């Protein structure tokens, strides 16, 4: 029997991930002698909505401090949200975590994983690779002890490492190999959804393409869904199907990768794309140099958050905040000048 639920617990859309009105503010505290006072909020993620389909890669770009990592961590409830909802496969993620139902929480954790930004700090220096890769199985108790070793070797093989690497420690590996170990660990429990937080940052260029290629291969083999975060536009545009552009805690544009690259609509996206140094710019495009820097997220500018740096600012931009509206099928943009 099929019952259509009307409660907020189940969402009937086909998207694997659906994020609705996600908000995360961090308090800014001033520590006095007697008590601590809150003097403001950092608007790290401010009313963000999007979806990711199964097997798709959504790229998330933006400059440092725009809230990319906070958004990723909030989706996984690694930091509690201020408000908003996230559905994973129709299930309300935050409610599961808030319910305290341990078996359900563990199940969600298995399905949603993250590849953390820095493999130098994230791999425990006192554990061997074998211990690092066995840990997920032990924590989740999904495999018998005897089978874990086999599983570890399989994981190593999957990411292109050798069996003898199992008894080594993280410091014995190069940056690229460490990244491979992190990937093996993130995929140990066969998640459906993986967040890649700066997957190729701080890697040498010849190693970068190796890792990207591995991630693409694994996605195809395991039908993974990725949310790929990076400030390196070249890499991200290479792996993504669709791209979301973030500025000061808000999404300013979402579209498929071709559109973002060839005909971006938002002035910020245009500037961002034009700022990427490319080899052989046949198009003879003009570079848009933005003035100034990203303003503080504690007191974001009124109206459109981009207006102080925007080359096309009008009066309305200073007063009213533009909404993310669909300007073409599947192409969303938040700009007064585009939506009229």
């Amino acid at each position, binding site marked *: 029997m099929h019952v259509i639920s009307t409660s907020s617990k189940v969402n009937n859309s086909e998207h694997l991930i659906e994020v609705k009105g996600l908000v995360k503010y961090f308090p800014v505290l001033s520590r006095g002698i007697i008590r601590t006072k809150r003097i403001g909020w950092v608007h790290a993620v401010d009313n963000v909505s999007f979806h990711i389909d199964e097997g798709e890669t959504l790229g998330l770009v933006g400059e440092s401090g725009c809230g990319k990592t906070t958004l990723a961590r909030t989706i996984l409830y690694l930091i509690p949200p201020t408000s908003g909802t996230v559905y994973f496969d129709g299930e309300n993620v935050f409610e599961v975590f808030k319910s305290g139902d341990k078996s359900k929480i563990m199940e969600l954790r298995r399905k949603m994983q993250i590849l953390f930004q820095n493999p130098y700090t994230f791999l425990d220096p006192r554990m061997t690779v074998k211990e690092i890769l066995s840990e997920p199985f032990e924590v989740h108790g999904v495999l018998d002890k005897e089978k874990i070793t086999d599983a570890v070797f399989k994981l190593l093989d999957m990411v292109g490492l050798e069996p003898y690497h199992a008894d080594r420690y993280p410091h014995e590996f190069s940056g690229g190999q460490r990244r491979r170990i992190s990937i093996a660990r993130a995929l140990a429990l066969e998640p459906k959804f993986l967040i890649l937080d700066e997957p190729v940052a701080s890697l*040498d260029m*010849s190693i970068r*393409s*190796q890792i990207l290629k591995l991630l693409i291969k694994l996605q195809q083999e395991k039908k993974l869904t990725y949310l790929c975060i990076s400030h390196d536009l070249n890499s991200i545009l*290479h*792996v993504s199907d669709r791209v979301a552009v973030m500025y000061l805690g808000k999404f300013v544009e979402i579209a498929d990768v071709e559109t973002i690259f060839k005909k971006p609509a938002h002035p910020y996206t245009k500037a961002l794309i034009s700022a990427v*140094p490319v*080899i052989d710019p046949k198009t003879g495009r003009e570079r848009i*140099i933005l003035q100034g820097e990203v303003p503080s997220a504690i007191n974001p500018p009124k109206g459109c958050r981009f207006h102080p740096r925007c080359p096309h600012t009008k009066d309305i931009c200073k007063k009213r905040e533009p909404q993310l509206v669909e300007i073409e099928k599947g192409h969303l943009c938040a700009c007064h000048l585009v939506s009229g």
Partner: protein
Amino acid sequence: MKDEILLNVVGLKVYFYTRAGVVRAVDGVNFNVRQKETLGLIGESGSGKSVTCLSILRIVPNPGKIISGKILYKGEDLLEKDESEMLNIRGKEIAMIFQDPATSLDPLFTIGDQLAEVIRLHRKVDKKEAEKLAIELLQTVGIPDAESKIRNYPWELSGGMRQRIAIARALACKPRLLLADEPTTNLDVTIQAQILDFLKELKEKFGMTLVLVSHDMGVVYEMADRVAVLYAGRTCEIADKNTIFREAKHPYTEALITSVPRIGVRRESLKVIPGEVPDLVNPPSGCRFHPRCKYAEPICRKEQPPLIDLGGGHLVACHLYK
């Protein structure tokens, strides 16, 4: 005038004597820089880019030693100068922007102090005058509100601002040659675009010659007139920009260019260079790229290929070309 050679690095070797063994960080680097041009120095980590720059200024840190080679600046060998002569060259003739402005600026001194220090080292001016010059410098590098910024400490400023200050310090005595070591590596793309644009503008204004060290092929493409590619402490190829990016001869250069993920290039067509950057304590014999090279032949394992001229200033070190 433009083709006159300002700097000529010949057979430079710099070794680091560490406990783990001798690290051959630079082991035969050759290139020259012409007046007023921008030379892009490209390579992965450990290729010897930074050590080469430090050697030009003769500030290689211990336990590093310049073993052999020549660094001819205006025809005079910098390696034969004594320390007092070098003091006159550093900052005044050749200046350097270091890789990381967060660590190359002293956190204990204000911006004004750090700029005034350089100015007073090379010019006979009093403190007041030096401060005035410091403010002017900050204005040249596009820092708003320069009068109050000189009282700030480096850690009070953003990454882009710090980089501008590092540039201001390097420009303090209007050097003829500027060595910029990864000047935009830790910056966001929009700030990177600002800084690169600004470097171009400065070059025009002061008629400077620029050596731009970078691992980012895109940055080098947009900035450089000529490019030198380094791998594991050796020069593998030198040519003008268009030749390097369109008709690269060395297999490493070719692989580098095709392995860079690029906007507009299809996912499946991304090439991969197998293997890792070699260990410089025990570098591969013969050509250092041979373990990763798809064209490697027996001779590549045995003999180090010499840097030969293919004509038109296109130099390559590979056994495939003889």
